């Protein structure tokens, strides 16, 4: 069975205006809209396209998170994943331990490809895929904007600071997605109904033999420094004069 594993993290929806709790103990997440991390939707879309082209037989979506993450997994199943695994943890799990959980699942499921998002937009860590690839001792191609499979290898175009880099990596491997890899499809109503019958398995973190640790403790959360609202100038002339006065242009 040619299998692709996709990571799905439940995060605060990207349209939500983030508020820091007044006591500095965290960010307000109660009652706010939660969604699949946008990069993970892209990861799943890529897996579905590979399967549609005949490059894979099965797509398994995996999440480590609270029981509520079932909602996001159901959405993923409706999008086109075949099976879902929910590794339950009420408390947040650090990237290194998420990678260790993924390694356990990789050992069990033997995927030829693991596709994760390049970063989760809550903690903005950008670590998990790289860590999994290290622990698994396999190739990584991060920040992918193009993925081409061909007999045991993948050619991946990556968005890097200099422009676009192309790597060739052997399989199995870890790929992490950038925004321009694809545009995820919308879920259709009949698919949501069908997804209800697809298998969703719940596992305990302890059952996988990973004991999460808190290596990095959050001490306090603050809102960012606010910029002062500036002035509205009326003409281009006025703007250029203001900039000249400040020595910003010659």
């Amino acid at each position, binding site marked *: 069975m040619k299998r692709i594993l996709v990571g799905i993290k439940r995060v605060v929806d*990207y349209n939500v*205006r*983030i508020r*820091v709790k007044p006591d500095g103990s965290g*960010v307000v997440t109660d009652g706010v809209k939660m969604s699949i991390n946008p990069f993970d939707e892209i990861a799943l879309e890529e897996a579905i396209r590979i399967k549609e082209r005949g490059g894979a037989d099965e797509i398994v979506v995996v999440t480590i998170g609270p029981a509520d993450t079932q909602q996001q997994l159901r959405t993923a199943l409706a999008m086109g994943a075949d099976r879902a695994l929910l590794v339950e943890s009420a408390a947040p799990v650090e990237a*290194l331990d998420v990678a260790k959980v993924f390694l356990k699942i990789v050992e069990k499921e033997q995927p030829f490809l693991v596709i994760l998002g*390049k970063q989760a*937009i809550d903690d*903005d860590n*950008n*670590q998990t*895929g*790289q*860590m*999994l*690839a*290290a*622990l698994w001792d*396999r*190739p*990584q191609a*991060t*920040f992918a*904007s193009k993925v081409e499979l061909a007999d045991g290898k993948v050619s991946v175009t990556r968005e*890097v*600071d*200099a*422009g*676009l*880099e*192309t*790597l*060739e990596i052997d399989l199995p*491997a870890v790929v992490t997605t950038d925004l*321009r890899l694809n545009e995820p499809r919308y879920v259709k109503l009949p698919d949501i109904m069908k997804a209800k019958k697809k298998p969703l398995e719940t596992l305990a973190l302890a059952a996988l033999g990973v004991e999460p640790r808190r*290596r*990095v*403790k*959050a*001490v*306090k*959360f*603050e*809102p*960012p420094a606010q*910029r002062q*609202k*500036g*002035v*509205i*100038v009326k003409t*281009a002339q006025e*703007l*250029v004069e*203001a*900039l000249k006065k*400040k020595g*910003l*242009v*010659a």
Partner: protein
Amino acid sequence: MSKVLIVAEHDGAHLNLGTAKCVTCAQAIPGAEITIAVCAADASAVAAQAAKLQHVAKVLKIENAANAHALAAVIAPQIAAVAAPYSHVFGPSTTFGKDVMPRIAALLDTAQISDVMAAESATRFRRPIYAGNSIVTVEVDAGTKVVATVRTASFEAAAEGGSAVVETASVSATLPTHTRFVSVSAAKSDRPDLQTAKRVISGGRALGSAENFNLLYKLADKVGAAVGASRAAVDAGYAPNDLQVGQTGKIIAPELYIAIGISGAIQHLTGIKDARTIVAINKDAEAPIFEVADYGLVGDLFTIIPELEKLL
């Protein structure tokens, strides 16, 4: 005492400015002794530049033909092999650092702290989360090996004038061959580099086409500015991906940032929080970009750009 190992970013000939910014971040750790590791096929030129940075005690050359291109899977085991004596391993929060540092952290079985914007002590750091909408202070236990990426926009580059010892490290890690470099398409231009430019002019979806983006290039050349873009402009193919500014593009801190036809989505603003002066040009007076702009000009960019060109 803290010993900080910094993983140098370079292109084989030149040390990237991000490395000098890591030095400044590391210096905030009391009593830190700083070493820079240069993984390269031939590390001499880059090592010589690293040795000139102030406050650097030592430069380690790690030479191997496999280092001709910076591949995370190849570099990580070499850094992990020399990391034992160090309390901290830092790299710049560029696509190079973001790619390689977590791989190093996992090999060292330790956590990574991403995008450090301040080191308050050897064990306490500040970093942005939620696209910069919150700043979290994090702490690790004393004695924990800290792997971190350094948010380059938060630090000045360390000055030259130092004279570190240069040593060659012999590393016996087995290097994988499963990852092969094929090509890089870098748009070569004579314009200032987006990440280090003092002035940046960015365009958004409103530019409407790649041809219209030329208006920005012309204006930028007049004032010696780099050109940036919003995600929408890049997605639409008006500008190449390496010009994207924001949460998933480049985080920049120019003295002057001019946003033209950009609405000011949170993800874009994340990339320009540290700009000294922000100018917004937008035809919609309600556009969120005006909330953060020091100077706002409401109007049509297609009439304003030519006016600016004449005035500058």
